[in-house]
């Protein structure tokens, strides 16, 4: 174990956790309002693609990030339109949204770049590149220092947070108390969509400065699992994201450490997923779902 570069491990963990934390918090907001948003994988993908596309054309990652926020709003509105306004089955609406968004992005990518090389676009620089652990992208700082506390405090201590939880637990009672269930769920899905899309844009605008097919590679689905693992609470969701990223970073180091040469690499690659499954198995018993989980609500 002496070969491991511990500081690099922590640095890699925080970087890799950033998109997971953003996505998981976005999903958590949706689910606390009573809507399972399986559009997450597609929303992250669209955030990555649109952010890349606009950053390339505008010459600034900030413009790209703003565009990712925009597509996150649209994706959230689409899921809200289907699940809140029409009361469509949430699994179908979410998976449909994911399929639609990924296919649209791949199609646009083919139109714009043919099968040729996708260009590099302006990306966010590393802050403090020479300082261990602190050498991160600005979005990582924003995520952990601003977004996480903001989501935590909003849910716990604001009127909007109370409304959001109320429509997720007992929409009838919330409605009777004068809270618009539909409007609150729309808001939750739109804010959630923005967080997801920014999480995706982190991949293209901070980590890579480019876009490739399958850029999110299932990270959205990991976020869905993290929210359940966290029992719909903010701090455990963040810790879960950090744990997953830690094991991922750890296996990438172990696999090139001579002491672990005998361990089959398949086991190494499966490690982060095994940890999440184990964590889910341990923490996922006797789950108490949000009261109105998966249930559409009609104002009567």
């Amino acid at each position: 174990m002496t070969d491991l570069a511990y500081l690099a491990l922590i640095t890699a963990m925080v970087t890799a956790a950033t998109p997971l934390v953003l996505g998981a918090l976005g999903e958590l907001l949706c689910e606390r309002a009573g809507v399972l948003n399986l559009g997450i994988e597609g929303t992250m993908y669209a955030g990555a693609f649109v952010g890349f596309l606009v950053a390339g054309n505008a010459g600034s990652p900030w413009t790209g990030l703003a565009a990712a926020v925009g597509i996150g709003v649209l994706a959230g509105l689409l899921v809200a339109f289907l699940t809140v306004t029409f009361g469509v089955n949430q699994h179908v609406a979410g998976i449909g949204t994911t399929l639609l968004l990924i296919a649209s992005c791949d199609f646009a990518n083919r139109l714009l770049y043919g099968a040729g090389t996708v260009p590099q676009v302006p990306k966010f620089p590393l802050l403090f590149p020479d300082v261990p652990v602190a050498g991160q992208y600005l979005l990582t700082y924003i995520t952990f220092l601003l977004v996480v506390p903001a989501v935590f405090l909003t849910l716990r201590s604001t009127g909007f947070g109370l409304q959001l939880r109320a429509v997720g637990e007992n929409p009838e009672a919330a409605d009777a108390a004068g809270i618009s269930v539909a409007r609150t769920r729309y808001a939750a899905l739109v804010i959630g969509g923005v967080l997801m899309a920014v999480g995706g844009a982190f991949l293209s605008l901070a980590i890579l400065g480019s876009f490739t097919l399958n850029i999110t590679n299932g990270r959205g689905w990991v976020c869905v699992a993290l929210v359940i693992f966290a029992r719909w609470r903010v701090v455990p969701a963040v810790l879960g994201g950090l744990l997953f990223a830690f094991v991922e970073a750890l296996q990438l180091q172990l696999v090139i450490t001579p002491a672990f040469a005998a361990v089959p690499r398949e086991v190494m690659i499966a490690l982060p997923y095994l940890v999440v499954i184990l964590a889910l198995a341990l923490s996922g018993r006797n789950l108490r779902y949000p009261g109105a989980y998966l249930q559409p609500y009609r104002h009567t």
Partner: protein
Amino acid sequence: MAACAALVLAACGGTTGNEATDSDKPLVYGVFATPLEEPWDGAIHAALQSAADDGEIVYRHTDNNNSDDKMTRTLRDLLANEQPDIIFGDAFASEDATREVAADNLDTAFVFGSGEKPVDPNFDVFDNWLQDPAYLAGMLAGGITKSNTIGVVAAMPIPEVNRIVNAFTMGVQERNPAATVKVTFINSFFDPTTAKQAALAQVAQGADVLFAERAGVIEAAKEEGLPVIGMMVDQKAEAPQNVVTSLVWDMRPTVNHVIEQLNEGTLTDEGNDLGEFSFMKNGGSSLAPINTDVPGGVPQELIDEVEARKQAILDGDFVTPVDESAPSGSTTVGE
């Protein structure tokens, strides 16, 4: 709105290929298992497209035929409706299914990227035999590393990848027996985010030269200010201060040979292994021009050594060994 319509029309043109204008030219179809954006199929597509641009063939293509079922349906459909003279593609995802369709259509030549044998009379196989440039790149990496640690990020331990990684390692070994080569497989053909993380983990363990068998690694080299070796096409433009050279695959010699055979009328006489046409001595692979403007530079004597070995390969005086066994995660080449 008009721009949108134009884009959609352009898209139709893009995915179905150019209109057949000259009925004298052979119709060649590309039937790919992955999206064209995948660099492997992208290299085949680029060669066929360039042959079409040179006016030698009429070229159309379809991609993402990623299952036996889809591949079979696509092949049978276009054989029935468009009667192509030659079908190029990659059979790795459906080796048996493609051979089954070929056996039912003996007048059409099937030329497929494959890890298995050709089948008489009409199923030829090819592969990306990049061991020659991989060996040369390994010599370069072994010569410029100062920490004696080199990182390789590759897709997965399949023969096509193994022989490139192993040839690279042998090249390192020749030039620098004290060096350690660290190999990470990311278990995906397409996951640049993980590839970058894997490369950073290698840097954290001392690697100061990287080989980007997969996309994502060059970005890590850029951030860390390290030299990196690219793959499939000359990737210098992606990081002019970091990319030392690239392993380049050119399918044009294979395509030219197939067209020649078609014109001679011998293409469907027997199934051939066209792998040799991807060898460096046949122009099917190469090492991109060496870029000395990288961190630490590249000494002239090292370049001379690599050039001399390249000449030996071209002259047939040196044959790069082909080793398709899975490399371990961390190898000290001198041991």
